[in-house]
Every structure is written in structure tokens, then in C-alpha cells.
């Protein structure tokens, strides 16, 4: 009966195809829908502000110093006393990141003593020239209401509404990840609309929304 099985073989192959046609699709229909990013996704950076609108960046260059790709260029300057840009003596008057050099390792976020630089869920940064990939302070700094700015105009591939959904990455628990800090916000969240809840999971607690925003 082996000849019969051989005859049937191709049809069994077609059967596989046929079966798959009725299974639910796994494909994410980008660009119409976007994959949900994990909470700590390393996307594009933003420079945050305090609730009163003051810049958090003090121009200390620790981010530039720690950057393994040396893609950050910061220069500090004296804060004008009558109209200070940031609290304290110094502010960052030049802040540039070359997104094409950046390896999105978030060491700058870890180094930042004022939580001025954080990472968002924004990932659409393709450019046609290398100059355009250098994000200046104007582009990195969030609006006073906490919305990240976008260097590109709105178009089919640029969804400005996305900016409001993709919040700045934040470390909500103790730096050491101690379970005792579960659910305790150690410092205030950054670029986002509203305040996201603290992270879960360090005490072994999980739920299905964990890891999604």
C-alpha cells in the first residue's frame, strides 16, 4: 500500500496549509497596529522636566561619560540666576544624542543623578541622512506637559498620538531589586501622561498585565 500513501502525500501537505488557514493569525499588522512593548523597553530617550516645568538636566555629563558608544554630547553652563533653566548652579545648554551611534543600553539612564534622561517606548526613528539622526535638546526635551517631541512631521508612518502612549521608562522599585520594595515607587515617574503604576514581579508576583503598559 506504499504506492497509495505516496499518492496521498502531497494532499497531506495541502491539508497542513488548509488547516493553517483557519488558525488565528499571529502576524502583527504593522504599521496599523504595533506590538506592545515590555515595560522596560529601551526606546528613544527623552529629557524630562519637573512638574513646575524646570528641566531636570543639570549638564553634569555623567551620561556622556558613561556612554559606551560616546554618542552623547553635553555641555554645561551657569544657570542664569534670574531665569534658571534647572535647579542649582548648572544646566545643560547643549544636549545631543547621535541615535545612530546609540546602542540603547540605558547606561545614561542609570548614570543620571537627577533622572533627567529616561527612555521611552518610541522606536520609529529611521532617517535618510546621518545628520537627521542627531537629536538635539529641542527634540529630546519633553513638552511642559510631559509629551515627548517628535522631530518628524505627522505622516502615514508618524503617529504623534503614539508619543502620549509611550511613557518614559522608569524604575519604580529599589535599585537593588529587593522584594521588600515591591509596589513601592522609589522615585517619581517621568515622561508620560499620568502616572503608571509601580512595577510588579520582584517578589515573584505576576499577573497578565505585567510586562505590558
Amino acid at each position: 500500500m506504499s504506492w497509495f500513501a505516496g499518492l496521498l502525500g502531497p494532499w497531506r501537505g495541502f491539508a497542513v496549509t488548509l488547516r493553517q488557514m483557519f488558525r488565528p493569525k499571529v502576524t502583527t499588522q504593522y504599521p496599523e497596529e504595533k506590538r506592545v512593548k515590555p515595560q522596560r523597553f529601551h526606546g528613544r530617550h527623552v529629557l524630562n522636566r519637573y512638574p513646575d516645568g524646570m528641566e531636570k538636566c543639570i549638564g553634569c555629563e555623567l551620561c556622556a561619560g558613561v556612554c559606551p558608544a560616546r554618542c552623547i554630547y553635553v555641555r554645561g553652563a551657569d544657570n542664569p540666576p534670574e531665569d534658571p533653566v534647572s535647579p542649582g548652579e548648572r544646566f545643560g545648554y547643549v544636549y545631543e544624542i547621535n541615535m545612530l551611534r546609540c546602542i540603547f543600553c540605558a547606561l545614561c539612564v542609570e548614570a543620571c543623578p537627577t533622572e533627567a534622561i529616561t527612555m521611552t517606548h518610541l522606536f520609529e526613528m529611521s532617517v535618510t541622512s546621518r545628520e537627521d539622526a542627531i537629536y538635539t535638546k529641542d527634540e529630546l526635551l519633553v513638552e511642559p506637559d510631559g509629551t515627548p517631541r517628535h522631530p518628524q512631521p505627522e505622516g502615514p508612518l508618524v503617529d504623534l498620538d503614539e508619543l502620549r502612549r509611550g511613557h518614559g521608562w522608569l524604575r519604580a522599585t529599589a535599585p537593588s531589586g529587593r522584594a521588600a520594595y515591591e509596589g513601592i515607587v522609589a522615585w517619581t515617574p517621568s515622561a508620560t501622561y499620568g502616572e503608571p503604576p509601580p512595577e510588579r514581579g520582584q517578589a515573584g508576583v505576576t499577573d497578565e498585565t505585567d510586562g505590558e503598559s
Partner: protein
Amino acid sequence: MADAPDQVSITLDGRVVEVPRGALLIAAAIEAGTYIPHFCWHPRMKPVGMCRMCLVEIDTPRGKMLTTSCTTPVADGMVVETSSPVVKKAQEGVIEFLLINHPLDCPVCDKGGECPLQDQTLAYGPGDGRFVEEKRHYPKPIPISDLVALDRERCILCARCTRFSEEISGDPLIEFVDRGNHVEVNTFPNHPFTSYFSGNTVQICPVGALTARPYRFRARPWDLEAVEAVSTVDSVHSKVSLEASMNEIVRISGVDCDPTNQGWLSDKDRFVYEHLLADDRVVVPLIANGDGFREASWGEAVGLAASRLADLGGAVAGLGGARSTNEDAYVFSRFLRGVVGTPHLDAQLDDGLAPEFAAAVEPRALIDDLDDADAILLWGPDLKEELPVLYLRVRKAATAGAKLVVVHPRRTGLDDVAAHTIRYRPGEGPALLRRLAAGEGDLAEARDALGAGKVVALVGRPGLAEPAELAEAVAAFALTLDDARILPLVRRGNVFGALDMGLAPTLLPGRVSVDDAERRRALAARWGSLPDGVGMGATDILEAAASGRIGALVLLGVDPVRDHPRPDLARRALERAFVVALDLFVTDSTRHADVVLPVAGLGEIQGTVTNLEGRVQKLNRVVPPPGQARPAWSILDDLAAALGSELEADAVEKIFEELATLAPAYEGLTWDRFDWAEGRDGVVVPLEGVTPPLRHVPSDPGLAVVSERPALHLARVLYDDGVLVRHCPSLASLAPEAAAHLHPRDASVLAVREGDRVRLEGVGVVELPVVLDPTLAEGTVYVPFNLAETAALGAVPSVRIDVVREAGS
């Protein structure tokens, strides 16, 4: 126990080590390889034991005791523990105490990243503090001078800055005030920290309490790229580290080089880098175009210069080279003599000393000779104004016991530590010298002081209105003493190197006289040709150019209109001649140039330089030159090629190799020697066993006394209106007010008061306010040289004073 008589043995953490007798325990331990943390102790200053960080345990008859190792001299058989639990606990306690009031603004502090307090907190601190109360607060930062800002919150009261000001620089303008918890470091009310050495306190501050305002927030330590070089601001050649960020030099720090600066710098050395970043630096070749300049290509500019120089044949002269490297000076010398074929060249502008005397005086002193001298004779410029780092060395020697005799027309910075100060009216120097040599009258004591033991004679020109031969006469007197050495003093950056490279009408490279036939042959064989005869010096060159006998001048980093004693002559000469200038800026002199070629400056070139004691040191490069600026040797090589000759100057190492073979005094030097071991502190030429052909023994030139009154004392000040200072925003504002200083008795004869205006007539006429100066010799007018208002005066032995009476007064 120790074998050598000057050694003792101590037990350091269970290890027996031999250390020098009498050394401080902390220094001995660090020397032996055991680091002891400290804040207040500094190897170049006396210990105070204020910070308590250097506590160690020492075995005593009463048991183990905690002692500050910075105040304890070593003793034979001493048993020391530097890391026992007790010491650790003490160190942790000290750090915790220091941090009680220290603010945590490290991210915005200029010291953050290179801060001893940060480092030692990490290495020796407890990791946690128990102090939760509010810290001490002060307004911050407060500017205590134009260069230094003070942040009292950060101060840990180590007294390094106050001790430096008192012990080292001798201008105690910063001190502790108040008592107990309120103690703070500060300046005196209404008196800024106007020290010439204030930058050193910033460098030695172990926290960020004192910061430099020009460097404030310019960069962070981790993005600084540093190389070693020497400061070419003056001829002492202090060792510095040039620190650059993003291709701009943003800081200069002193490096401890035992034979020269011992870690200290003057503020001019420290902040002079600002001129490199000036907006009006020449960065492209310029060709004169009507009243101004137009930008040109290298080919066009060099072609124009070469064709005009070729047309003129030998009627060309060269000035300058005293601010360049030895390699630039050598190529300049070869270019002028070998390619252009002119014997007329001079690195000095008749404002220095005779070339043979400066370059080849015997026996020559080293700066280090000051330390074991019994007496020091200083007859020359006010060191604090002209050679500030040498001032520190002389001051150190004098406070350590050397008898210092200062001869100057007015009070100098060293008068405080001098055993004898002698004032004289400029022009009457020769008479004074005869009286001093004979020990007449009130000079007997000073003569006695010089009479015995080792003497170092620092000789130079006290003022520009006095003849250069005075130094020769003083040196000749010094040689009549038992054991005297001469250190000729000329200020300009690499003037000694330039003279050694033959940039003088009477000298050939390597301390050779132009009359030396044998050396001439050797040089001509390599250079192709060598013009005959002795050329003209700077003044003669300028006169010849002004009268048309010299058709073209090549200027290498020189500003005769400002620096020559006769500014009017220099201006006429430059206006008439065809001038090719290699310079950083369009200066008062290069404004008259027909072609200006941009050269690279400090930190932008490699090369060697020679300081006033003959020490050759290496300059390293840390940033690229801006625009199209290039090293001078490379430009001269192009000019020579356009004139149809080959200088083979295509790498600085190659030029150095050539000059080391052709210049007898530099025989045996190799380029690599400056990078390693002792060579890093420089090498004094001639090397042992090398005898340069020219040895100049000073003899009394028989100067006549000029006793016209009022005599002019025209002397340099540290911050003048020179081209470098003018382009350093932080330093330019520090220039003193231009004034005519008069002795009160002279002023009363003229019936002028302080602030009245007088008109002085020398070469030119200047109008200046009067300042009364009781320290000035009577019958003398002192005018600071080269300020904007005094530049036109010129150097003449005596001036005419007219009082300007305002109408109605």
C-alpha cells in the same frame, strides 16, 4: 637597623623598609609604596595635621597610639600600622565627619571626577552617614577674584590654599575667618584674591571649594584628554599638562617637575590657553588688500611671498622666533641664512640681553643651584612680574636661608624675603655696581653677604630703558666672587632656544660664533650656502627697513611695534618694507604685513624648547590647529620650496635630528629621550662631555653713568597688553591701570598729587595719571611697559615730564 647614616629602618605594616632620616612618616610610607590617605598634607608645603585623614597606629612605650603621619618624622625602629581595624575606624570616622557639612553636589562640581574627597570616601569611607540634620549653607559660589570662585559649603578646612598663599607665593590674601562651627575660608573684606598664583590654590584644593572661573563648567575630568608640555609663556618653562575637551584646550594644570616649577604655575601660565580659542585668530593665509586683508589660498600666499623675497635678493631680514619651538627657530635660521641668504636676523628686539651673553655665559647656573646657594644676587627684572615661577623658586631659597640681595629701581615682589634691598636710579647702575663691588658705605653688608659661599647671580635688564650691557657688567662683578654662577634672565618664551638655534646676528646654531670658520664650513656643507659677515641686530634691521635698504622682513611670531623699545621706528619699518608674517593674530605689527600666514600654537604642535638654564623639554600636541594653520617649520619649508630650495623639513623629529647633529650644544640629544625617565623633566644642554665652541666669560663693558633726571624705569608687568594676554578674556581684565609712578618727593617738586595727569615725552608722548610710589628711587618715573596707554612712550634713558593742568583748576 639601617646601614646608611642618612637612612633609618621602620616597620610598615609588618614590612621593614629603609627610609630617609628626618622624613615625614607619610612621605616615607608613600615613597615605600604604602599609600596613606590625606587631604591637608602636600609634599611641597609644611605639614599642619588639620584633616586627620592620615592617622596611623604607631607603637609607643605606652602602647599603640593613633598619630597623624603627616606631622610625625620617622624614627629608627618605628613600628607603624596603616590599615589596622583601629586605623580603619578612625579613617571612617574622619570621612563621616568631613561629609557632615559637605554638600552632595558632585554632579555639578568642577572637581567631581578628580576629587580626593570623592576618591577617599569611596576607598576609605564608611559608606553611610549618620548625620541627618540640615547641612551648613552659604551663598555660593562667590567670586573672590576675577579668576577664582569660592564655595564655602564644600570646604573641608584643610588649609592648603591659605598655606600656599602664605608659604609659597607670599601674598596671604586668603585666610580662615571666624571660630568653631562657623569657621570658613575667605578673603579679607574689600580685598579680592589678586594673587598672581591664585590658580594653584584651585589645583591643590582637595575638594571643589576653590574653582577656576575660566574653566567653570567647561568640561568634566573624564572627557579631558591630557598631554604633557611646558608653558612657553615665559622662559622658565614650567611643566604643564594641557587638557583638552572636544578639540579645545580647556585647562592647563601644573605638573610637579622638580628642576623647574615644582608643581606651581603663574595664573598667566594657567589661563593663557584662552588665546588659542580667540575668534580673531588667523586661520587662513591673508594677503594685504587696501587697508585690510583678503583671504587667500596657501599656494597664492606662499607664491606671492616667495616671488617678492626672490626679487629682493639678499635685502631681506628676519625677526622673531623667540616664541616658537627650537625646530621652528632652526628652520627659520636655515631658511634665512641658507635659502634667502641674509645674515640679518634677530630673535630679540633689543629688549633682552646680548646674544652671546644670554646663550653662552659661563659658568651658568641651574635653577636648582638656588636651593643650596648661600647668597643670591638679583639684579634684573622684578621676577614676580616677568618670571613668576622663578620668583617662587627664589622665594623658596630665600626663606630657607639663602641671603638674597635685590637690586632694583623700585620695590619688587621679593623684597619681603630679601636680606638686602638696594634701590638705584636707572642709568646710575654702573656707579652703584662699582660701589657694591667695593662694599662702600651702606652697601658693605650686602657685599659681605655675597662674599662667602656659593652665589647665584640672577642678572637681567631691570627695565627696558637701561642698557643690555648692565647685565654683563653685573655678571663680570659676580665672577669676581669666590663661587658664583650666572643665570641670565630674559623673559620671552623660547628666547634661549632661539639663540641656541642661531637666531642672532652673531650666532650660528648650537652656541657657535659666526666667526667660527670650521663650524661655518660644516654648516655650509649641509645648508648649501651661508652668507658672509655679521648681520644686523633688530634695531639696525628696522632702521635699514625704514630707510629702504632692507626691502623685506620675515616676522615669526613677533610684534616689534609693541615690543621694540622704539615703537615709531618699528612702525615705519613695517610700513615701508614688504612684510611676510607668520603669526597667530593680526597684531599691531602684522597689520602692516603684506602676507600673513597662520601658524599653530601651544598644544597644536610638537617640538622642543630650551629654558633659561638650557633645559630642553618637549612640547606635545593635544589638539589640531584651527582652520588652515600649520606649524611654522612646515610653512617655511613651503616658502623655501617656492624659492627653489629644499629644506627637507617634513617632520619635527627629522628637524630635531638634523639640529642635534649640526648644533654642537645639542649634540647627543635624541627625540625619544624626552619621553622617558629623567628625560621627562628635560635635559640640560650641553650634555656632559660636550663642549660647545662658544664660551662667553663676561667682562666689564665699562658702561658710562647716565644721570639725567627724571630717569625712566620702563618695566614689564605680568598682565600687559601683549598679544597673548589681550586675547585671553580672563587675563586681559587683570592688566594694571597705566600710570606714571613718581616718588612723593618728586611729585611734590612737580606739584602734582595722586590722580593728576602728566604728559611724558620719550620716543613718543603719552599722558598718564600719577601714582605715588614711595618705594621708587628718587628722580625716577616708573611706567609699566606695553600697556595700551603706555605703548607709544618707547624706551629712553630719561623723559620729559609736563604736568597737564586742566582749565579752571
